[in-house]
């Protein structure tokens, strides 16, 4: 159980002529840091373009503050040994579950569902950070089962506990986040489990469960899904977002309309574009080429995180990275597909770019943990 000894910030003694700082600087995963910084910078730039001079201009300043908080979170997560975090995984999950219950009971509604929690001046969506808690818990389970196959008595309660947040989020109801978290968990399973058959069975059962889920969905959720299937059926209602988003993206053509020239976002044809539709703004103003650059950066980030996973010193580090990579991947794919009219409109953010503290903090912490895994791959 040496991996649980939790040496934390216990870096080895300095070697002759090499300071701890220089060793740290040399070991930090700079490509990862730079990719994150580049994407976050694009996010800020994009938000500025879309809101400067409008009544939403204050959102830019707010986002800068959150970016700063996120940066600090990234640093802290890098410096702290991920193994210490994994050790606290069940506590993290317990806190997340409690927060979710509080939201379900007293939470403030945002667009017909309760996702928001307010404590004093601080408010946030616990469902975002819950994703990290679940990833960390899975990392721990995977680590503990790396040896022999676990007994049923041991594994079932743990898996059930990991699934509890999904159910709570679905009950909020926030179907987007719940499905996303499910996708992340499935991805971790498919990439990290030694034996794939349990995952295949799970997937099969879930497909069977889809009709039952449809029956229990709220009317507005059904409308959104139906609107996605045929956006032109009700162009001014549910399909409005999708239609206007497609117009915005398409109208960017190859090189885009340019900085602050996107009429679709400037004149409110894309309501709330800063949270769920920032890609639409980017694609309108910078065109096909700009879209390729941004998607390329995301692809690089994900592949790089997977690279870190492959080189991690232990299984839990690998699973942690796989989890963060999966989370990033699904957020990007679902969000962009939604913007391009290929997926229903769900509240799934674009990592580092969407306006909002909870989402930013989640991704900065997540990538920070990846940096921590990367930093310690050589046996700090």
């Amino acid at each position, binding site marked *: 159980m040496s991996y649980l000894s939790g040496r934390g910030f216990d870096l080895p003694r300095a070697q002759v002529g090499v300071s701890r700082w220089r060793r740290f600087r040399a070991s930090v995963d700079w490509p990862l840091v730079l990719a994150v910084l580049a994407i976050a910078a694009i996010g800020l730039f994009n938000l500025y373009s879309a809101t400067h001079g409008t009544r939403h201009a204050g959102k830019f300043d707010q986002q800068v503050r959150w970016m700063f908080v996120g940066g600090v979170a990234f640093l802290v997560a890098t410096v702290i040994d991920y193994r210490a975090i994994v050790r606290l995984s069940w506590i993290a999950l317990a806190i997340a579950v409690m927060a979710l219950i509080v939201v379900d009971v007293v939470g403030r509604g945002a667009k017909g569902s309760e996702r928001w929690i307010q404590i004093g001046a601080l408010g946030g969506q616990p469902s975002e950070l819950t994703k990290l808690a679940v990833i960390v818990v899975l990392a721990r389970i995977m680590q503990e089962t790396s040896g022999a196959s676990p007994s049923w008595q041991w594994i079932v309660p743990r898996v059930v506990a990991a699934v509890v947040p999904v159910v709570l989020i679905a009950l909020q109801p926030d179907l987007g986040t719940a499905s996303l978290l499910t996708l992340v968990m499935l991805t971790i399973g*498919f*990439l*990290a*489990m*030694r034996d794939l058959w349990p995952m295949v069975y799970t997937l099969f059962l879930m497909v069977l469960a889809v009709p039952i889920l449809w029956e229990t969905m709220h009317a507005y959720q059904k409308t959104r899904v139906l609107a996605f299937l045929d956006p032109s059926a009700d162009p*001014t209602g549910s399909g409005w977002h999708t239609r*206007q988003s*497609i*117009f*915005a*993206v*398409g*109208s*960017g*053509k*190859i090189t885009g309309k340019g900085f602050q020239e996107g*009429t*679709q976002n400037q*004149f*409110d*044809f894309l*309501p709330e574009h800063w949270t769920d539709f920032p890609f639409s703004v980017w*694609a*309108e103003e910078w*065109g*096909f080429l700009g*879209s*390729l650059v941004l*998607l390329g950066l*995301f*692809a690089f980030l*994900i*592949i790089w995180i*997977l690279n870190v*996973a*492959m*080189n*991690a*010193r*232990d*299984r839990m*580090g*690998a*699973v942690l*990275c*796989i989890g963060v990579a999966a989370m990033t*991947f699904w957020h990007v*794919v679902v969000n*962009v*597909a939604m913007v*391009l009219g*290929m997926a229903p409109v769900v509240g799934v953010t674009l990592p580092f770019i969407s306006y909002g503290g909870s989402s930013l903090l989640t991704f900065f912490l997540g990538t920070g943990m990846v940096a921590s895994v990367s930093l310690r791959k050589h046996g700090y």
Partner: protein
Amino acid sequence: MIQGSPELVRRMRWVLLFLLVAFGGLVVRLWQLQVLRGDRYRHETVENVVHERYLPSIRGRILDRNLVPLADNRPAFNIYATPRSFTPIIAAQLRRLLGLSDEEMEQVNARIESGRKRASRQPVLILEDQERARAARVEQERFRLPDVEVRHEPYRYYPQGDLAAHVVGYMSQMTAVELARNEDEGIAPDELVGRYGLEAEKEHVLRGKKGKERYAVDARGHRLDEATARGLIKGDRIVEPVAGYSLVLTLDAQLQKLAEKAVSNHAAAAVAIVEVKTGRVLALVSKPSFDPNVMTGHLTKAEAYRLNNDKRKPFIDKTLRAQYPPGSTYKFVSTIAALEDGLAQEDEEVACTGSYERSGTRFRCTASHGKLDLVEAVQHSCNIYFWTLAERIGIDRMAEVANEYGFGSRTGIGLNGDSPGRVPTREWYEGFTRFKVGYTINSATGQGDVEVTVMQLVMAYAALANGGTLYVPQIVDRVVRADGGTVIPYAPQVKQTISTPPYVVDLWKRGMWKAVNELGGTGYEHARSDVVSIMGKTGTAQVKAKRARKDEPEIKNWHPWVDHAWFAGWAPAEDPEVAIVVLIEHGGSGGKVAGPVARTILEGWWKDVKP
């Protein structure tokens, strides 16, 4: 080095493949949207932002000869709504706030629906010409009525009410067919167009040309500021509207008023007064009439029902469209034909016994007149004298003279469906029956199948008065710009010159003089005037007997079984200036009923209008 997850390393190929497929799918979709369909979506986003609206042009006015406005424009409050945001909730709010009736609500919904089909983000006119209170209400409650706006726009109105309503006409909403035809000119579905009278006939002159404004809006339809708009819109942003031209009529509003007042006691009547020497129309009355202010955008269903079911047919112009048997006013035709052909002599006397028999049919005269010469026959309007002449000249020769005086063909005024009337000939009768001498006899006294319009008759009498020039009646004197400058002047137009020898016409005139000014004349009691010398001919045209049906609503002074009363003549007698024809539909005796009306009008004209 590989410590973490050997499974991941094993599955890395699949992971990368999956990533490639997912991101590749997004890129392909981006390619489709941005590269393949980019132009289309760019166009859509421009349409989102740049809206067009037409700027109304001010419609030309219609003025009488002294520039008294008969049709004008006044500022009005029009309420517009944008179909896209006009939800049932807002409709209910609007209804409650303004207290709209079911009928108004129906209209609002119909207009919203048709607007939605065209361009759901373009405001459509839902309620026109609203009271100040309603407009103020909409302004006050703006937050409850998003995208409902009040515009201050010119609206057609008729300051003289129903004065000369048939000449001026009215306007009404375009039909779908008209709309399709005129769409390019920027005519909105809720727009009014001239529908009757000069409003319809001179639509192209009066309308002018709409301007166009292109402006930028945000998603809520709020206008963006000038600088932004300039950046977004290429080309002209405003094309100024061109005001329509105004019409100056030959009509005299004062005389028109006088004439309308003179027939006010009759249920249905027509009066036409023209200048003898030019053919210019001074007054044209068709009764019953309608109020163009009501017809133009304020017609309720109840009112429309009432007008459409009125037995007197208010929408048929009784001076131009309706045809009537002219009765004895038509006798000049047989007189002229007979005298021209030498088939009658001034001093030839015919004995009137009160009845006349031909081919087994007994024709009755108005009285037993005893022995009369030609002039006396005109004075007393003895039918038997003219029946005798008719048999000598024949129906075709009479038709020739009638055609010379303009009967049987349109007057050429080009208004309200100007009818040609009917002058029967032998050939015409043989087209469907065996010709009988009775037809000739009937034609001689303006009965049977002879039909004329009031306008035809007045132009014929003007021709008698002016020595043989038949004019085309002229109603528009000139077309003017808003500043009063003349654009098109119209001159009197001669339809044809008549070659009746002067001594023939003089003989007929002597008869007309006696009819009004000598004891025993048909108009002596009722049409003779001490104010102005009048001469004329009365007529009492028999109608096919009609009994009122019991279920018919009673109309005051309306007796459809009674004869039509006519008076046709001119004043002053010696040097004619104006010719007049009065027709009282089902009024009874021409002299007794139509005579006094003509006298009142001509006296008023002489005393008040002429100087």
